[in-house]
């Protein structure tokens, strides 16, 4: 536990000294802001404001930005030779893996928390309007709260996948590219159901939907519904990826 905490602290601190983390945070918040603004304009006086737009944008951006922040976790240490030292420290391999994972996840959690500023804007817009039109109802908080929990779990899963690829190679670019490709495929997997049944049978499409990362939040958490199977899904992905990553780190000893 103590060792996990030590590794966690260093990893998290590391994000705040590296420029790429700030760039990613800047880009994510900027893109979400643009999308949020456009959405707000489109809905004005037609539809009630929707807080989950921020979250679905965040989730989509994660597919591309998570690899940028996880690719260094192990690849950099392998290349710099620091992994050799870490593996001769009196800590267990899984403590190193879990510490790094939690550090990266904490950085994302901070990023996710910063997006609460948009919810604040929505709250002020909806609740302080002096002449509410019938269409301008109060902000629906259920999907927002559920959404934050869901997207938080979702980002944990993407980080675990990104970290796995980082442990696979000492080349950060390859690690980043591979995890981006895999995350993208897993993210759009549920779209297979849109293809004609002659190309993709319904059974295959259903299987793809079940493993797709998007399907486990878009129809549940973002609707304000917390279903245990979705929680298990993300927790399971994290657990399996952490387990495999630990094995991968261990295997460096045998190579």
């Amino acid at each position, binding site marked *: 536990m*103590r*060792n996990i905490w*030590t*590794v966690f602290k*260093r990893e998290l601190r*590391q994000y705040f*000294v*590296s420029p790429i983390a700030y760039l990613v945070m800047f880009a994510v918040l900027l893109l979400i802001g643009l999308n949020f603004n456009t959405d707000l304009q489109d809905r004005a006086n037609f539809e009630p404001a929707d807080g989950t737009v921020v979250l679905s944008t965040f989730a989509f951006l994660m597919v591309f930005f998570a690899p940028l922040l996880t690719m260094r976790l192990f690849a950099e240490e392998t290349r*710099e*030779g*620091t992994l*050799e*030292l*870490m*593996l*001769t*420290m*009196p*800590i*267990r391999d899984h403590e190193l893996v879990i510490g790094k994972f939690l550090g990266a996840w904490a950085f994302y959690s901070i990023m996710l928390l910063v997006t609460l500023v948009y919810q604040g804007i929505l709250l002020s817009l909806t609740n302080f309007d002096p002449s509410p039109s019938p269409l301008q109802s109060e902000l629906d908080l259920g999907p927002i709260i559920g959404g934050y929990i869901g997207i938080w779990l979702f980002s944990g899963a993407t980080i675990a996948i990104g970290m796995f690829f980082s442990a696979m190679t000492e080349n950060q670019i390859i690690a980043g590219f591979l995890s981006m490709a895999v995350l993208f495929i897993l993210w759009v997997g549920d779209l297979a159901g849109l293809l004609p049944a002659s190309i993709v049978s319904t059974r295959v499409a259903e299987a793809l939907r079940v493993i797709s990362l998007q399907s486990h939040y878009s129809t549940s958490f973002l609707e304000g519904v917390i279903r245990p199977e979705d929680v298990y899904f993300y927790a399971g992905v994290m657990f399996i990826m952490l387990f495999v990553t630990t094995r991968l780190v261990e295997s*460096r*000893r*045998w*190579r």
Partner: protein
Amino acid sequence: MIEVQNLVKKYGEFTALHGISFKAREGEILGFLGPNGAGKTTTMRILTGFMPPTSGVAKVAGHDIFEESLAAREKIGYLPETVPLYPDMTVQGYLEFMAELRHVPERKKRTQEVLQLVGMDHRAKSLIRSISKGMRQRVGLAQSLIHNPPVLILDEPTIGLDPAQVADLRSFIRDLRTQHTVMFSTHILSEAEQICDRVVIINRGQIVAQGAPRELRSKLNLGSRIYVEARGRADQKALANTLSKVQGVKFAEPYQNGVVVNVKDNKDVRPALAAAVLENGLELLELRPVAITLEEIFLEVTTALGAEEDA
């Protein structure tokens, strides 16, 4: 403190270590000597618990490195060949992180101590990426000392340093001996000769010789050598001829301005040599023993081994 028995390491088809055995006693500096690719780093990586051996036993401070890996690792300070540093951290931040991983009590205080020990306290706040190669080496060394380990394993610690830094580091390693057992690898033979109590020479995954530098010299029956320089009518060749007839001399050959005499069985032939020079009507200018370097021991043992393999 370090005990290695029959260590074998195979990388697929390639055998890096063919069952080596050696020991290092407490408070000893053990030099691990060999050409590049001899298996030095492999042995050290096994001893530090970075990777397991294919077979054989390695114990550090009484703990089996494979069975009780964590306990053994706590007793070791390790400086790998590529100094493992995080460029984005400050010197102090890095050392404090290492101290925390090593569960050092009073981290801040201990960090200051080792910084002073390696003479880096004036750069404690600098980013590691901004300090020079020699300083990085010292920070790496500080890292290996942070938990005051009984055993220090240093993989080619002097590589890539300038001569002044090398001299500094060597005397530093010598000073460590009072509290630590030090094992360090090098392919520079004079280095091992200067600072080691014992030397293990390894080549192609096999130990070819081990012992104190002095012992190794006599064990390999290299005898001793004496340099003689004289002035007079006779030239170098004539002098060499004369001196080779002295009793106890193996052979003599011209070298620089004088003659080098190879002596059998460490006999003291100096008086006889001086007498021979004077008897021939020459003036004796210089007569001194020439140390046989590990270079020569090394060449001797490695070529002998090569010859065996070829036969």
